Structures are given as C-alpha cells and as structure tokens.
C-alpha cells in the first residue's frame, strides 16, 4: 500500500471524504437528527424543503432529513455486513480451492460458476421470498449471492502465489499446509481483495435498492435509502424531493466507493481489468 499514490488520486480522495462524512453522519444519527424518524404528522404531509424541515417531509409527514440519516445507518451497515460476510466466505472457499486443488477446487469452482451464471437479483429474490426480511436475513441473502467473485479472485491469487518462492520455501521447511496458507499466502492476496471488497460494497447498495423496487428489500417502517427511494415512486411528480435525496445518497456513495476502489487499486500496484 502506497499512501502517497492514493493521496495523488483526487477522485479517490474525494470519494474517501464523502464516505467518511456520510458514515459519521449516519453513525451520529440518533444524536444529530432533528426529529423522531417514525413520528408521523398527517397534517404536515409532503412539505417541500424549507425552514421547519430542511429536506421536507414525506408522505406521512415524517422529516426526510431524519429518515435519511437513519436510513444511512441501515444502508451502510448492510453494505458493511454483506461485504464482510462475502469476504469471509469467498476467501475461505477460494483459498481452499486454490491451495489444495483437486476435488475441493472442483466443488468450489462448480458452486462459483453456477452462482455466477445466474442473475444475482433473481437469486436474491428467491432467497428473500423464503425468509422474513430484516437487516440480518437480507445481509445473509446478499452475501450468499455475492461471495463467488471474491472466491474467484482468491483462488486465482492462490494459484499464482503457491508456486512462488516463499510458499515453496515454507513447504521445504516442513511447515504444515494450513500454516503456509494462512501465514504466507493469504496476506499476499489481500491487496486485490480489498479492491474487490470496496467495489462489492458499492454493488450491495445498488442491489438493495433494486430489491426494494421489486418488493424484496428492507421492510418498512425501517428506512433504508433504497427503501425510501422505492417508496418515493408514487410521488415522483408531486414531491420530487422524496426521491432526489435518497437517490443522490445512493449515487454518491456508490460512486465514492468506486473511486476509492480505483484509487486503492492504483495505490496497491494493481492493474485495471
């Protein structure tokens, strides 16, 4: 990791700043939000952004700014949890496949290839229709369809790394294979994984919003950005701000994560592709 290279990427730095700002705001939501996120007021419905409500009110008179902050908690937490889960499953299985080869490799590759050959959204919907949707089941569903890309990367890294000198040296020294794998090989595969995980977390935000649109996202009244954007559908014309703010939040976050991912790739000496 070459921090100076990262710092020299203006888009990456801008992305990181946006992410940190949004993350802090979401984390501090209970303390900085001006209203109760679920307090309705049927006499102050769909008020445009103004003095009383900085970002206006929604179709039940709830403060949009407050809900944006609380929704950010859910959306960002979801992206984080899904990414962590996918990295855990993906690196474990990918390392297993790449390091040991043989039937382990064939099994993992079969699972990876079949999952990658089906539409993620469809699979997530199928899984989502069986489970009662909350943050954790949704995270599980998304992780189950997201790990294959990470497993593929890890496996490819393992295949190239295990023939390298330090792995051979480790084996020559009589170290147990697990030790070689976890102490020597995995740390060397971290760089591309960090990049992939960053891009994956961006993808999770988009998939969550698409799932909301198709009726399988976070269930109300728990606000998520995707859920808010979906609920705003009925009011695109009457109250456009209901769609604009969550839409911008998703777009900004996804773009920021992509820029950060690109900058990390450059900083870690990887090439595009």
């Amino acid at each position, binding site marked *: 990791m070459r921090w100076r290279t990262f710092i020299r990427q203006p888009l990456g730095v801008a992305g990181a700043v946006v992410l940190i700002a949004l993350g802090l705001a979401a984390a501090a939501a209970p303390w900085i939000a001006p209203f109760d996120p679920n307090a309705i007021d049927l006499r102050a419905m769909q008020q445009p952004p103004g003095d009383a409500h900085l970002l206006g009110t929604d179709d039940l008179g709830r403060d949009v700014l407050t809900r944006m902050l609380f929704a950010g908690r859910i959306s960002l937490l979801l992206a984080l949890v899904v990414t962590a889960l996918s990295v855990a499953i993906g690196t474990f299985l990918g390392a297993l496949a790449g390091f040991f080869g043989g039937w382990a490799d064939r099994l993992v590759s079969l699972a990876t290839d079949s999952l990658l*050959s089906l539409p993620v959204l*469809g699979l997530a919907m199928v899984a989502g229709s069986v489970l009662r949707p909350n943050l954790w089941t949704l995270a599980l569903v998304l992780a189950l369809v997201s790990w294959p890309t990470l497993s593929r990367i890890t496996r490819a890294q393992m295949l190239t790394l295990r023939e390298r000198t330090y792995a051979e040296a480790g084996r020559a020294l009589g170290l147990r294979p697990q030790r070689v794998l976890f102490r020597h090989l995995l740390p060397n595969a971290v760089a591309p994984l960090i990049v992939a995980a960053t891009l994956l977390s961006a993808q999770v935000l988009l998939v969550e*919003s698409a799932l909301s*649109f*198709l009726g399988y996202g976070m269930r109300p009244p728990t606000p998520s950005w995707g859920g808010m954007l979906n609920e705003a559908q009925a009011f695109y014309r009457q109250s456009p701000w209901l769609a604009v703010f969550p839409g911008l939040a998703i*777009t900004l976050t996804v*773009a920021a994560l992509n820029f950060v991912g690109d900058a990390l790739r450059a900083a870690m000496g990887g090439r595009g592709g």
Partner: protein
Amino acid sequence: MVHLPKGGPADVYAADPSATPEAIERMKEIWGLDQPLHVQYGRWVTRLVQGDWGRSYVERREAIEVVADRIGPTLRLTGAALLVGLVAGVGLGVLAGVSRSPGVQHAVRVVAVLGMSVPTFWSGAIVLLVFSSYLRWIPAGGVGTIGGDANLLDALWHLAAPALVLGSVYVAQWMRYVQAGLESVADDDYVRTARAKGLNRTRALLRHGLPNVLLPLVTVLGLELPRLLSGAMVTEVVFSWPGIGRLLHGSLVARDYPVVLGTLIVAGMAVLIVNLITDLLYGVLDPRVRYA
C-alpha cells in the same frame, strides 16, 4: 430449491369458505403439492430431463411456452444494452487512454462511474418523465406501437430508452478496461516501433494498441450476461418490456414455481451458449488460438 412452505398456489383456495380442508388437500393432490418438497423437486427434475418443464399455475400452459414467449424481447434489450455499454465504454476508454490530460481523464471517469451508480429504476423513471411525458421524444414503454405496423424503426424507437438506461450501467467497466489496456500497451514494442516510424502517439495507440486491447474483451462478454439479466429485471418493469426479467419477477410474486425454475434454466443456458460463442469467436479473431 424454490418450492416454498407457505403461500403455495393451492393456498389461495383456503380463502374460500366452502373449501374444506379435504378439498384443499385434493387440490394439492391434483397439483402434486401434497408430497414433501424433496419429492416434488425430484419429480420436477425427472420430468425436466425428459423435456417436460411442468405447467405454469398462472398461465395454465407449458412453462417452456411461457418462458419462450419472453426470450426474444430480452435478447433484444440485453443485446442493445450490451452494445450501448460497449460503444460508450470503448469510446470513453479510448478518450481517457490516449489523452494525457488529467482533467479529461477525470471527467471521463466521473461520467462513466456516475452512469453505473444511479439505481436504474430511478433513472428509468426520470427518463420516462422527461423524454416521454414532457418532451414526447420516446414512447411510454412497450416493445412496439400497439396496433401499428411492426417495422424496424418502430422497434428501435421503443428499444432506445430501456437499452440506454440498462446499458449505462456497464459503461464504466469497459471504459476502465480499455483505458488500462491502452496505458499498458503504450510502452509495448510494437507501439513504440509504430511511433518510431513516424505515427503520433494517438495514431500508434489506436491502430496498433487498440486491437490488442479489444481482443481479450470478447471473452469476458459471456460473464456479463447474468448481470445484464439482473439489470433487465428492473428495466423491464420500468419500461413495460415483456421479457424474461419481468417474468421472473412476476412468477416469484405469484409463486409460479415451474416458470421461476424455467426462467433460471434459460438464464443459465444462455450463459453457457454465450460463453461457447465467445470462445469460438476468440479463436476466429486471434490466430494464435486454434481448436483441435
């Protein structure tokens, strides 16, 4: 895999006061839903191997017919979206790759990344609102003018907006790929030779570098198909497009399992076929690859 414990098709009959528990059981028997899930699934697989995909509970005809009706529109949409993504992506990638101005490079990247960062059900609705409702440049969705003559122009006119919305998601990755590829071949021998012969950097890159960058791109096309289908599930609902993605969504909501499974089979098969085609294509395009 997809048979669900609650809310099966026979359960709508529980709504009827006259439907005794026996009658509901009988209904499940007629549909084979009285068996345990693994037995149902086993039966379905056995019949699938024999070419029988089962019947749609909703449309009451062969699931394979239901799915077949929707393949054409989805092929058109995903094909056009792929083309949009490729043309724009390669174009922007070349622009960023040959330009040495950081300003241009950043601008190109911002445009491409924003394209992939906007939820398509939102951008699609905005496109309809602005270009169909207000400006009247594009139709309000669908594959063709109902009752009009089916002709190519009408079809393209309907295809344009959904293909642009779906395709915009894929611009960034092609751009990134082409840009990085051009930067990496810039120092290769053949590009340097071309420059030594008097071509300027841009021309040398485009004439000699670009073909080598684009060639491997063919192989990744197949991998894009599942993502395109995912995207199509949303785009097809937004633009009233009668394709596979919308069918999968509707069938899941209606718990029409044979159609859900049929759709996933078709999606999987399409990926296999496209991968095969791209492999062959790669062989034709790259003389170094020969198949025995």
